[in-house]
C-alpha cells in the first residue's frame, strides 16, 4: 500500500530496529497514520468523522464491557439490574448514560460519514470496496444497536423486540417458524434476552474487525478529498501525522464537548420514557417508536398500507425497508458519473441536498404516529428515496454537464500549482 511519495519507515533506535525485525508494529502504525500514509492536503472537517466513529466504537466497547459486569441477562431481574447500575454501582449511572448516548453519537458521526461519502463521491471507483465494507459496518451497527436496546427489558425494549422480530414473520410460509427460532419462544422472553445479550457483546468486535478491513481497503487507493481529483504527486499530500492527527484531535475535542453536554445535562433526551416501565407482554405502549437513528427506515416500513401485486402490505414494508439499505451496496455502479465530488456536479449537488431533506422528513414521519398526514407524507418521501437512487442518480450521471475540474489538488488549494510546468509560458 505504499505510495511512491510515502516516506519509508527507518527505525533509528536499536530497540526499534530489533522490534521492526521481529514484530513490525511500529512500522504498521507509521504506515497507517504516520508519514507513511500521505493524505491529500485539502481535507475539510467532514473527514474527521471516520476517526470519530472509531472513537465512538471504542467508548461503546469500554463502557459496554464494564456494564456487562453488573448487568444480569434474565427476564425477571434484567430491568432491576439496570436500575441497580443506575443507583448502586459506583459511577454506574455515568457509564450507562455514556453507553446509551454513545450509541446515538456513534450513529450521528456515522451518518455524517456516510453523507460525506455520498457528497464527495467516496463510494466511486477505486473505493467501491471501502464503501461496501462501510455498508456492512452500518448493517452490523443497526443489529447491535437494536439488540442493545432490548437488554434493559423495559416496555420499549420488549415491544421493539416483538416488532423487529415480527419483520421475519412477513416471509411467506417459513416466516413464523423463523421468528420462533430467532426468539426461542412464541414471544420475546428469557431465551431471546439471553441470546441478544450474547450477540450484543459479540458484534462490536465483528464491527471492529470489519473496520480494519474498511481502513485497509481505504489505504490501498488512499483517501478521497473534497475536489475528488486524484493525488498527482507529493505536493498534493501531507503526512497523516502530525497534520491530520492534529486536525482530528481538534474534531475530537468538539465531539467530546457535545457528547459530555448530552451525557451530563440531557442524558434522557434521546431515549423514550416508556423504557422506564418494566416489560409487560400483555400491553403495548400507545405509540411504539424505535430510537431516532432508525426513524427514516421505520417510516419506509410503515409507508406500505395496502396490499398490491398479490403481495401483502406487511411484506412490502419489510422488503422496502431492507432494500433502502441494500440499495447502497449497488450505488458505486448505479452512479456512472466519472466526476466524484459534488462540488463539480451542479445537478447532483441539488439532488443530494433534496435527498438529505427527504431523509430528514422521513425521520420526522417515523417518529410521528401512524395517522394522516404523516402516512401520506411518508409514502411520498419513501417513494422519493427510491426515485433518487434508482432513477435520478443514473439520469444525472448521463445528462449532467460537470464544472471544470482543477488540474490538481494543489491548484485547487492555491489557485495555481507551483511545481507543475506552466501551461502558458
Amino acid at each position, binding site marked *: 500500500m505504499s505510495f511512491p511519495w510515502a516516506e519509508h519507515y527507518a527505525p533509528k533506535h536499536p530497540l526499534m530496529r530489533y522490534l521492526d525485525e521481529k514484530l513490525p508494529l511500529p512500522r504498521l502504525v507509521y504506515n497507517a497514520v504516520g508519514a507513511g500514509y500521505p493524505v491529500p492536503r485539502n481535507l475539510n472537517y467532514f473527514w474527521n468523522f471516520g476517526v470519530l466513529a472509531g472513537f465512538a466504537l471504542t467508548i461503546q466497547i469500554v463502557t459496554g464491557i464494564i456494564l456487562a459486569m453488573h448487568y444480569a441477562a434474565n427476564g425477571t431481574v434484567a430491568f432491576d439490574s439496570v436500575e441497580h447500575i443506575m443507583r448502586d454501582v459506583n459511577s454506574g449511572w455515568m457509564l450507562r448514560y455514556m453507553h446509551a448516548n454513545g450509541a446515538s453519537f456513534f450513529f450521528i458521526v456515522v451518518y455524517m460519514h456516510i453523507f460525506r461519502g455520498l457528497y464527495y463521491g467516496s463510494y466511486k471507483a477505486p473505493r467501491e470496496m471501502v464503501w461496501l465494507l462501510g455498508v456492512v459496518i452500518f448493517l452490523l451497527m443497526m443489529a447491535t444497536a437494536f439488540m442493545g436496546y432490548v437488554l434493559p427489558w423495559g416496555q420499549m425494549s420488549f415491544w421493539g423486540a416483538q*416488532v423487529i422480530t415480527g419483520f421475519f414473520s412477513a416471509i411467506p410460509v417459513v416466516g413464523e417458524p423463523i421468528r420462533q427460532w430467532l*426468539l426461542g419462544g412464541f414471544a420475546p422472553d428469557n431465551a431471546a434476552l439471553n441470546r441478544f445479550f450474547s450477540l450484543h457483546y459479540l458484534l462490536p468486535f465483528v464491527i471492529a474487525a470489519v473496520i480494519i478491513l474498511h481502513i485497509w481497503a481505504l489505504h490501498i487507493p488512499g483517501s478521497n478529498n473534497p475536489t475528488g481529483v486524484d493525488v498527482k504527486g507529493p505536493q498534493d499530500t501531507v503526512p497523516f501525522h502530525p497534520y491530520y492527527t492534529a486536525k482530528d484531535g481538534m474534531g475530537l475535542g468538539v465531539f467530546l464537548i457535545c457528547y459530555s453536554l448530552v451525557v451530563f445535562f440531557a442524558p434522557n433526551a434521546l431515549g423514550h420514557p416508556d423504557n422506564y416501565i418494566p416489560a409487560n407482554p400483555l400491553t403495548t405502549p400507545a405509540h411504539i417508536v424505535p430510537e431516532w437513528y432508525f426513524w427514516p427506515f421505520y417510516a419506509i416500513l*410503515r409507508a406500505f398500507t395496502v396490499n398490491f401485486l398479490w403481495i401483502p402490505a406487511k411484506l412490502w414494508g419489510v422488503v422496502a425497508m431492507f432494500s433502502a439499505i441494500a440499495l447502497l451496496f449497488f450505488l458505486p455502479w448505479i452512479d456512472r458519473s466519472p466526476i466524484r465530488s459534488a462540488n463539480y456536479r451542479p445537478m447532483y449537488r441539488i439532488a443530494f441536498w433534496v435527498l438529505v431533506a427527504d431523509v430528514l422528513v422521513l425521520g420526522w414521519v417515523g417518529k410521528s404516529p401512524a395517522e394522516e398526514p404523516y402516512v401520506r407524507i411518508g409514502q411520498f418521501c419513501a417513494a422519493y428515496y427510491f426515485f433518487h437512487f434508482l432513477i435520478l442518480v443514473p439520469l444525472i450521471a448521463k445528462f449532467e454537464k460537470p464544472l471544470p475540474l482543477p488540474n490538481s489538488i494543489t491548484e485547487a488549494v492555491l489557485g495555481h500549482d507551483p511545481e507543475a510546468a506552466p501551461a502558458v509560458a
Partner: protein
Amino acid sequence: MATPENHEDPNERPPVIGPEHDEGQGPRRRDFLNIAAVAFAGVGGAAVLIPLVNQMNPSADVLALASIEVDISKIESGSGIKVSWRKQPVFVRNLTPKEIAEADAVPVSSLRDPETLEQRTKPGHKNWLITLGVCTHLGCVPLGISPEENRGPYGGYFCPCHGSQYDTAARIRGGPAPKNLFVPEYAFKSPTTVQIG
C-alpha cells in the same frame, strides 16, 4: 540427487508418484481419497451444524406452557378479558347481539382474510370470540378488549402502532396487517370454563 536406479543412501525415500507418472490413465487413487475425505468432512461438518441451529428453537420449558383454564362467568356482554397463554395475550370477548349481527352482515368475499364469525367461534358459543391478542402485522397488542378503549372504525380491535383495524369478529379490515387475529386451539370444559391450548 539420487535417481530411482541408484539407491545407495538408506535415508533416501523412493520418489513420490506424481501426476506426470499416471497422466491419462483415468481417475487416480488420490482423486478417490480426496473426494472421500472432503465428503466425509462435509457430512461431519453439516451434522455438527444441526445442534448449533437447533439450540435456538423454543426449549422444552417454553413448549411446556401448554394450556390454561379461564373462568368466563364474570365477563359481561360487550366486554372481554385478556389472559396470558404461552407468554402471549389471549383476548376472550363476550360479543353483544349487535356485534354478532355486524360481523355476519359483512360479505365474506370482501374480506382480506375471508372467514365467517361462525368459523371463528365454537358451535353454540357464537358470542365467545377467543383470539390471540397479537396483531398479525408486527405483533403489537391491539386495543379494544375493554369497552373504554379505542376499538377503531369497525368496532373490534385497533392497533395504534401501525393502524391495523379489526372488526367485531377480529377480522382484519384496514391497515397493514395481513391476517385475522389468530384463533388458538380451545375447548369449553363447562358453560363457564374454557381451556386454551
